[in-house]
């Protein structure tokens, strides 16, 4: 229209055509979902948050030079100041440094627990759905048994049982929490996978592939997995957030992670006794926890909507 636009006059011409091409082109489910996702502001916010958290988790020393485990009782429970942005905890340790370092453990626990749940559930679900018959019945009943144990109760019992046997190492304590979450949560992915595998098995193209002599491995990898990936991925994203919350809940109850491990749940658990006098002890790890879980839930939500347009 006016002079400034003439310099880029080729752009406005190209854009509508490109948009038209994008609209009319037959898109695969994944490409379609990705196209959809990039246009959702909530997805971008969630992805940015998660990106930032991952950086925090990977390189905590970039953000703080204070050792999160060193305490000085003389400054115990001091309010936030210029020197310690988030204040000091009951042992005089820097809350900011602990929150930053806590990111790593919280995220690692979430990621590993999710991986465990997805892998175990997927393998069991695929076997049950693909083999069928008594194997399916047996696996489905076993899943029912674990599904029948209320999560928190089951976790309390398991964690108390093995508490002593893992000792005091960071890896042992974290591993126990991850294993417990996995043990009690795998039935959900198993059910998703199983029903998807059963649905896939009765599809005509899978029957055709079988009739043509395709082996079980080929049918599973080429025909069943692609159709089951989407619902499992959506569940995994939301579960990741939920597991980070679960770690905090268990630590809060005093059966999850514990000193010397630094995690948000541990910090919140320690803050319990000082709620009235030093609320900042709860506030900072609590806020990080809420934002992280929210980011993963948002992400999962956006991914689900993108993969399932009719859900909106």
């Amino acid at each position: 229209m006016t002079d400034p636009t003439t310099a880029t006059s080729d752009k406005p011409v190209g854009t509508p055509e490109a948009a038209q091409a994008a609209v009319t082109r037959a898109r695969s489910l994944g490409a379609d979902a990705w196209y959809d996702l990039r246009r959702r502001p909530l997805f971008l916010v969630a992805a940015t948050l998660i990106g930032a958290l991952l950086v925090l988790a990977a390189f905590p020393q970039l953000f703080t030079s204070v050792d999160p485990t060193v305490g000085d009782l003389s400054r115990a429970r001091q309010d936030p100041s210029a020197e310690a942005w988030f204040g000091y905890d009951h042992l005089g340790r820097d809350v900011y440094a602990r929150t930053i370092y806590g990111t790593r453990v919280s995220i690692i626990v979430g990621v590993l627990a999710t991986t465990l749940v997805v892998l175990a559930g997927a393998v069991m679900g695929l076997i049950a759905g693909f083999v069928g018959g008594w194997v399916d019945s047996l696996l489905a009943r076993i899943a029912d048994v674990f599904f029948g144990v209320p999560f928190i109760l089951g976790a309390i019992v398991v964690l108390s049982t093995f508490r002593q046997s893992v000792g005091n190492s960071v890896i042992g304590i974290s591993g126990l929490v991850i294993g417990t979450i996995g043990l009690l949560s795998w039935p959900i992915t198993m059910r998703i996978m199983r029903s998807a595998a059963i649905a896939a098995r009765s599809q005509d193209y899978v029957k055709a592939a079988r009739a043509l002599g395709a082996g079980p491995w080929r049918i599973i990898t080429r025909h069943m997995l692609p159709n089951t990936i989407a619902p499992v991925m959506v569940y995994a994203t939301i579960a990741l957030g939920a597991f980070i919350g679960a770690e905090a809940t268990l630590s809060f109850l005093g059966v999850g992670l514990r000193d010397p491990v630094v995690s948000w749940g541990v910090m919140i658990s320690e803050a319990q006794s000082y709620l009235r006098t030093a609320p900042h002890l709860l506030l900072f790890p609590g806020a990080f926890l809420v934002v992280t879980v929210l980011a993963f839930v948002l992400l999962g939500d956006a991914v689900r909507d993108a993969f399932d347009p009719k859900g909106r």
Partner: protein
Amino acid sequence: MGRYVSRRLLQLVPVFLGTTFLIYFMVWALPGDPLAGKCGDQACPPAFIERMREEFGLDQPILVQYFSYLGGLLQGDFGTNFRGQEVGTLIANAYPVTIKLALVALIIQAAIGLTAGVLTGLRPGGFLDNLVLTATLFLVAVPVFVTGYVLQTVLGLRLGLIPPTVPANPGILDLIVPGYVLGSLSLAYVARLTRTSIAENARADYVRTATAKGLTRQRVVGVHLTRNSAIPVITFLGADFGQLMAGAIITEGIFNINGIGGLIFQSIQRLDGVVVTGVVVLLVMIYLLANLLVDITYALLDPRIRLD
């Protein structure tokens, strides 16, 4: 219908056995000697230990112990702990308040969740819809104990609207805030599930037919749409009751309610396996029965189920 119910009941048996055995096994595998500290500061005399072990069947293999426990359970006997307390009595004291709390939570989440879900499901994409969607995301993201502490601090300590802890024999009104805390997560799920269900069914052909029949909007929504959309929501609510009872541990801790949460914690600390097993087994039973009830309701609501 009768056949359907009995078949579902039959399916419950292996799950019940499996779950209770799992719990029993884990609880008895708890490390530490349950008899430690029984005799004051001194170690118990070997004869006493021997007698106790025999009395409680600790010298038997775990399977034998489990089945004798199960036998007692079927006669309504939850056994006796090492302190000589009847586990049945302990449970009878702790359960009512937890059931009350779970019911309050269930009612709150159903009332708010259903209303929000129906309103947004009928007008997806509107302002209210986006508001509710965002609100549910927050409810899902904030862990129950954070919600609990925040409400306790703000409503109880700062504003003084509620007592920060719940009295010993709480009435329904005392349990509203704890009930909300307990049900907040599920509230979000109920709202979202109802919304999706309503929005999906609103596009269904039979709703179009009902409109084409000249039925009023209220009737189309109130009779044709709700009946179909209620099915997944009822399933969720029923299954959630068991989860609420189990999840009450946290809420009970925060608001100092003497329910099963406290009982379990104490018992785990005292290595009182009989009590832990009893409480958990009862919870599992409630959970399984609630699911059975849901399945029956499901079959009543959806005539297509009866065929398979």
